[in-house]
């Protein structure tokens, strides 16, 4: 297993709050933040629950509005993305004082983002005005940051990145695809630092749209359960800072984990329904494992796409059975979406953060909600309480030291995160962690 990308920073914004500490504390409780909408307008909708991001703490607002010349022009999704990126950047050489990289350093930094909504919430307000539904003149500034590259570009400008900057919008696979693009850029030597992430905010359009597809559960979603009825929408952002191991070593960076492989595929089956046997999903997972140079037996747990729709959970587990065989039934699986909802395009980015946190803390967070596991799904969701990684009831799980980690290092585990999209685009990312530079701590 060749490690070409280590993770040295994490940032997030979600229904649990602003910052990864809030996210982890929330995941540890095993409870859900999906609930009755307060800020988000659900008038006329078929369902009423969401996972909304709470107001930012004063400190966060002050930090950004004072330092960031364009903060007041950014969309809500942009701000989630920038806040998460700045948090993740905190451990970088430029993080502490938020100094900008020099003209020599800038080109070594790239930004790879993924999302579905960008400035859509603001555009909805513009639309209401321009059609006369709400009073007041239509304000063009509601559309300044409408386009999908908004959050990624805002992050690049804020951090001072001068290398490749690219935003992907392939529905729910976007975050996973963004991490894949970051990994490739690092491997080819194009950049030494790659900021990968995504940001989304709740919109009437996506909320109505998924309800029109009858894909939304009226109650908080319960992935893998027998009586699951659909997904729950969320919002927020997730950012991981990736570096080449050499760059991290040279500056004595604290390494949290590594991205060791990614894979992507397309179902080419149907515009909305996943392939019932999960063929495309299985292909993406296999490609990611092959890219990482590891066997399926080495995977310790999976952060699933796990939306809670009858179709997704069934086709996803079919894919897991195809890849992992008999072991699928004992392989721990969790869905972060049960806790913070489905962020759509940026879900893969937030779930990458959650996965790294699980590796770092040595436990797989539980998927919230009660109910029995669907007997038709041969998987082992982590329910009720978090599952410690060190104690394994899975006879097939290989310990990190057997997967080729360096002698003298701590036990490391392999985790897989999956993201599957409308239109059949699939992404899978393989993580290894926790890590410490050899000889440290």
């Amino acid at each position, binding site marked *: 297993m060749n490690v070409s990308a280590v993770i040295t920073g994490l940032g997030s914004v979600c229904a649990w709050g602003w910052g990864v500490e809030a996210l982890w504390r929330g995941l540890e409780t095993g409870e859900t933040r999906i609930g009755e909408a307060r800020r988000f307008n659900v008038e006329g909708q*078929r369902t009423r629950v969401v996972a909304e991001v709470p107001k930012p703490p004063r400190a966060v607002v002050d930090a950004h509005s004072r330092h960031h010349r364009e903060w007041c022009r950014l969309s809500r999704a942009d701000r989630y993305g920038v806040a998460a990126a700045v948090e993740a950047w905190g451990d970088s050489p430029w993080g502490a004082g938020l100094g900008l990289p020099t003209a020599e350093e800038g080109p070594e930094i790239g930004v790879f983002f993924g999302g579905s909504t960008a400035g859509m919430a603001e555009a909805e307000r513009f639309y209401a005005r321009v059609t006369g539904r709400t009073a007041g003149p239509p304000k063009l500034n509601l559309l300044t940051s409408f386009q999908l590259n908004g959050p990624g570009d805002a992050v690049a*400008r804020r951090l001072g990145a001068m290398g490749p*900057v690219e935003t992907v919008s392939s529905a729910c696979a976007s975050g996973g695809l963004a991490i894949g693009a970051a990994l490739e850029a690092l491997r080819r030597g194009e*950049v030494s630092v790659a900021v990968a992430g995504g940001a989304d905010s709740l919109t009437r359009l996506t909320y109505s749209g998924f309800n029109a597809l009858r894909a939304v559960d009226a109650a908080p979603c319960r992935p893998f359960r027998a009586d699951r009825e659909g997904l729950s929408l969320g919002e927020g952002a997730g950012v991981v800072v990736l570096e080449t191991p050499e760059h991290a070593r040279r500056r004595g960076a604290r390494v949290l984990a590594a991205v060791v492989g990614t894979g992507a595929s397309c179902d080419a089956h149907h515009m909305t329904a996943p392939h019932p046997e999960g063929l495309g999903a299985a292909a993406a997972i296999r490609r990611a494992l092959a890219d990482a140079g590891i066997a399926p037996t080495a995977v310790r747990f999976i952060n699933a796409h796990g939306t809670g729709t009858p179709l997704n959970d069934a086709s996803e587990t079919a894919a897991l059975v195809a890849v992992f065989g008999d072991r699928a039934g004992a392989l721990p699986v969790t869905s972060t979406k049960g806790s913070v909802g489905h962020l759509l395009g940026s879900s893969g980015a937030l779930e990458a953060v959650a996965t790294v946190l699980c590796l770092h803390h040595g436990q797989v967070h539980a998927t919230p909600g009660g109910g029995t596991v669907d007997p038709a799904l041969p998987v082992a969701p982590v329910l009720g309480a978090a599952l410690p990684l060190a104690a394994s009831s899975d006879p097939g799980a290989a310990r990190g030291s057997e997967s080729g980690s360096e002698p003298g290092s701590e036990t490391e585990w392999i985790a897989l995160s999956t993201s599957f999209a409308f*239109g059949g685009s699939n992404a899978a990312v393989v993580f290894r962690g926790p890590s410490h530079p050899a000889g440290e701590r």
Partner: protein
Amino acid sequence: MSAGFASLEGVAITGLGVVTAAGCGRDTLAAALVAGVPLARPVDRSAGWHRPGGSHCAATVDPKSLQPWLSPMAARRMSPPSRFAVVALRRALEDAGLDAATLRAGQAARPTAVFAATACGPSSYTERILEQIQEEGPEAVSPSLFTESVANAPAAQIALACGALGPNVTITQREVGPLLALRRGALEIAEGRAEQVLVAVVEELTPMEHSVFDRFGCLADAPRPFDRHRRGYLAAEGAAVLLLEREDVARARGASIKAWVRAALAAFDPAASLSDYSRDPTPLAAALARGLERAGVEVATVDRIVSGASGMPTGDRLEGLVLRRVWGSATPSGTLPPILAPKGVVGEGGGGHLAAALLAAEGYPFGPTAGFATMDPELMITPHDGGSLPPARRLLVSALAVGGAAAWVVLEKGEG
């Protein structure tokens, strides 16, 4: 360590399909480029938020031009950009001498990747959903409108149309998206992850969007790239699909190689504003120079530039200054090679620029640069005047975006 470079070998472009305001297929675009006249058609100003005295025109696609290539039953649930994309795909495969059934049958052995670019995605469907939510309530939203309103719908339809099982990635990076998609596609082949890749650019322009761009002060019905008195760009829609193949795969099936992708660079200027182009060309000029050097492409060997200049005052300024800076540093005379500015004809959006770049690499003639009359003294650039030019061997294709992104691709003349 370098920034944004990729030096590529064996990446061939073997097919082009294109749908623009000029019509469907490479010949319609070629004719328009020779004519050198902006593809400006009247826009329905009653359907947007148009201002008096504002823009009346855009380079819009005539739906009839799609007709023999897409049946009504197939088109019924596709958004307009998906229709453009699938038609462009079919033309591209035809152009490459490859049929969809053969492509589909080979997926197990060689899954085809799709890299698409769009700025705004399926906008008419998005607007209709907003209208439904507002006028009839959220419960009246049409499910199939929603599924076809996402930015990746056209890329998904392309995959469905030919069974493409490889990665399916839609890049949304405004003016720079098309070259980034080409870059990703080329890297996928050069780095051994794919043998065949489809690169697509798709855009749809609605009257509402048109009126918004106009209100932002960006549009001109008669664009004048690089001209001293330029005032804006021509908004456009359409689709372009390119088939990329690894050289040995292309040769094995006797494909005609239209052009090679020799290098693909990407960079960003964080000093740019959220809503405009950078003022100082230094960082991007440095990125271009460094990228070409790392790719082993000597500036002096580039004998044609396909510029992304569109008539936008600040955008053309940045394009021009970056090119001046790079050529000024790299060559004794600082003389620029002939510069084509096809957006004067095809407008901004929908793949016309990328398709025109390929046609330039294939040696097609270009007419005079639309609207150009007076040189801008700050840029000292006189784009192509329509005279005959020797065939280009090595072309630099350039695109810069509002907000800071930049991309350049070096194409080399093929063999076809």
